[in-house]
């Protein structure tokens, strides 16, 4: 709790003028359940991250009223969608009101002629696509949290999609949205002011400003999305290699092939194979000379995917790949849409099984720098593991960001034994995150391709990455949120309210 009980009563009384009783939640369970996220969470300090209350608005106007009240009373506001993010965007750092948007989950319009739909941002992509499938359409924003992530969270994170090389990522797929500013004003942002416009050169490109801000610049409430025909055919071959270098070369060649139906290629390194060989039924029986894996994914009409698929199969064969078979290929790919449902465990250094939660640290890294970053990241996590059994290296993968193979979402998966976390282990983790981010920057990369970079550790290096641009971030924040009520404590933006000489 960061505000007194009397102030909570004052806030609740004000909110009850604009919301029903069932839309204002103050119980302990309601607050605890809206505090944490699936990323490793300092459970020993859970109580430090509690909101004072949560609200469940059902319209843009109700969100605006809530934010207006919070701004008047100087109470922090934290937007929360699926709560599946991996950089703590939805975690309250200074208490206040969590705005849970799940009730804003309606499909307002499906425009078949213009191939768009307009939805409340509390809708989940899986549920949306069940409805769109009736019309032969799909909204292809496909995170690893696909069954539980919500459209609004994807906007707040500027999310990354598994099949983004084919269809684009969230920034490309969201055409426009209604947005509540930190002062409670409602604006509409898109290309120009268009709701269904995919390209405009009119004015600043505000849509991008209001995506990926991790809830620090307001709350998206209703979005218009770009739709595609639901694919007729899917192909997802997985290949084994006896060395990383050939797998790396193959991945690059697949991405550079310029195949129109190409939706992505993934490179799994030796550590990832070792992890899978331990616990994944598809890889436990693989021979020991399997040391790296590659997969490619294609979507489209069957008469497009078949010839293009042959091209990719030939490229893989020419790089020394061994096709892993239809069952592993199809099954492993299908499982990647839903990584959050996978029960996980790690190992102590003695080999005993322990319950662990999964975390992946990500970055955007150019193709030519992947091997060096891979080596240096594993060294960082090896240092962690030497110090504590709380951490386990679950390997790395690199996943094409786009259709040309320039850069890759690069992730290292780390198992964390949350029940054993204490201040010492948490500090080790935060330091390691800072080191991982430092490696990314030293190789010309970006700290995050997918998750955002506002967590403890990595966030310290955001000013280094953005340079003068970080000062612009501070200026924008102070201008749009004069009272610092919107998700305070994130992205070092509290510096925007310090005297100018103290901001660097």
């Amino acid at each position: 709790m960061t505000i007194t009980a009397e102030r909570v009563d004052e806030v609740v009384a004000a909110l009850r003028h604009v919301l029903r009783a069932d839309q204002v939640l103050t119980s302990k369970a309601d607050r605890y359940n809206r505090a944490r996220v699936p990323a490793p969470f300092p459970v020993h300090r859970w109580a430090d991250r509690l909101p004072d209350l949560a609200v469940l608005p059902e319209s843009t106007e109700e969100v605006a009223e809530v934010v207006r009240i919070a701004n008047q009373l100087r109470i922090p506001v934290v937007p929360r969608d699926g709560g599946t993010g991996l950089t703590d965007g939805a975690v309250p750092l200074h208490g206040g009101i969590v705005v849970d948007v799940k009730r804003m989950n309606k499909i307002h319009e499906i425009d078949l002629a213009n191939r768009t739909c307009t939805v409340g941002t509390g809708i989940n992509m899986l549920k949306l696509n069940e409805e769109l499938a009736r019309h032969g359409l799909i909204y292809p924003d496909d995170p690893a949290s696909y069954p539980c992530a919500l459209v609004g969270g994807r906007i707040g994170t500027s999310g990354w999609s598994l099949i983004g090389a084919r269809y684009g990522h969230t920034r490309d797929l969201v055409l426009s949205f209604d947005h509540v500013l930190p002062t409670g004003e409602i604006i509409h942002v898109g290309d120009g002011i268009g709701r269904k416009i995919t390209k405009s050169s009119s004015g600043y490109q505000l849509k991008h400003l209001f995506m990926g801000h991790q809830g620090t610049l307001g709350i998206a409430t209703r979005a218009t999305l770009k739709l595609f025909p639901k694919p007729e055919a899917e192909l997802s071959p997985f290949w084994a290699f006896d060395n990383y270098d050939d797998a790396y070369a193959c991945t690059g060649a697949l991405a550079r092939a310029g195949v129109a139906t190409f939706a992505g290629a993934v490179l799994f390194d030796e550590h990832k194979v070792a992890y899978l060989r331990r616990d994944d039924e598809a890889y436990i029986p693989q021979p020991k000379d399997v040391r790296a894996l590659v997969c490619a994914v294609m979507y489209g009409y069957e008469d497009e995917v078949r010839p293009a698929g042959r091209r990719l199969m030939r490229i893989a064969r020419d790089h020394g790949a061994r096709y892993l078979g239809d069952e592993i290929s199809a099954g492993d790919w299908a499982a990647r849409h839903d990584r959050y449902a996978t029960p996980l465990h790690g190992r102590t250094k003695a080999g005993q099984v322990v319950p662990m939660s999964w975390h992946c640290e990500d970055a955007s890294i150019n193709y030519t720098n992947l091997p060096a970053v891979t080596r240096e990241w594993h060294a960082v996590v090896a240092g962690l593991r030497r110090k504590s059994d709380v951490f386990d290296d679950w390997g790395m993968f690199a996943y094409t960001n786009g259709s040309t193979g320039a850069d890759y979402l690069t992730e290292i998966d780390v198992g964390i034994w949350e029940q054993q976390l204490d201040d010492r282990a948490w500090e080790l983790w935060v330091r390691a995150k800072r080191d991982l981010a430092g490696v990314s920057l030293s190789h010309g990369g970006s700290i995050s391709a997918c998750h955002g970079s506002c967590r403890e550790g990595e966030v310290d290096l955001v000013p280094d990455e953005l340079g003068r641009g970080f000062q612009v971030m501070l200026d924008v924040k102070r201008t749009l949120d004069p009272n610092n009520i919107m998700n305070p404590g994130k992205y070092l933006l509290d510096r925007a309210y310090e005297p100018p000489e103290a901001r660097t």
Partner: protein
Amino acid sequence: MSGPYRYDEQHTPPAPERVSEVAITTFEHAFEVDPRLMQQWVLQQTFPNWDTLRIMSSRHDHLEWMHAHFATKVIHGSELLAGLEEPGDLDDPSVDSPAARPTREVLP
């Protein structure tokens, strides 16, 4: 229900076979962590056979559902491998072969 599934034989899976240094198998494709590695922090649970098989089937159902959710049909790599050696399918100069891996050209 009068079926015998609750009784002893349903709690006796096929004899385990070692498949790696850290895993065993019982039913076909049913892999388990070596019980020696689950003695301290996480203890291995006993499942009736029908539940083990149900969990495996549910997993397959889930994956099938996900395929159908994203595309009408799945093309398998084995179908394409069979045609790789067909005339006209080789020696395509546009293919990025290992012998012609790109390098970075720095212009003066």
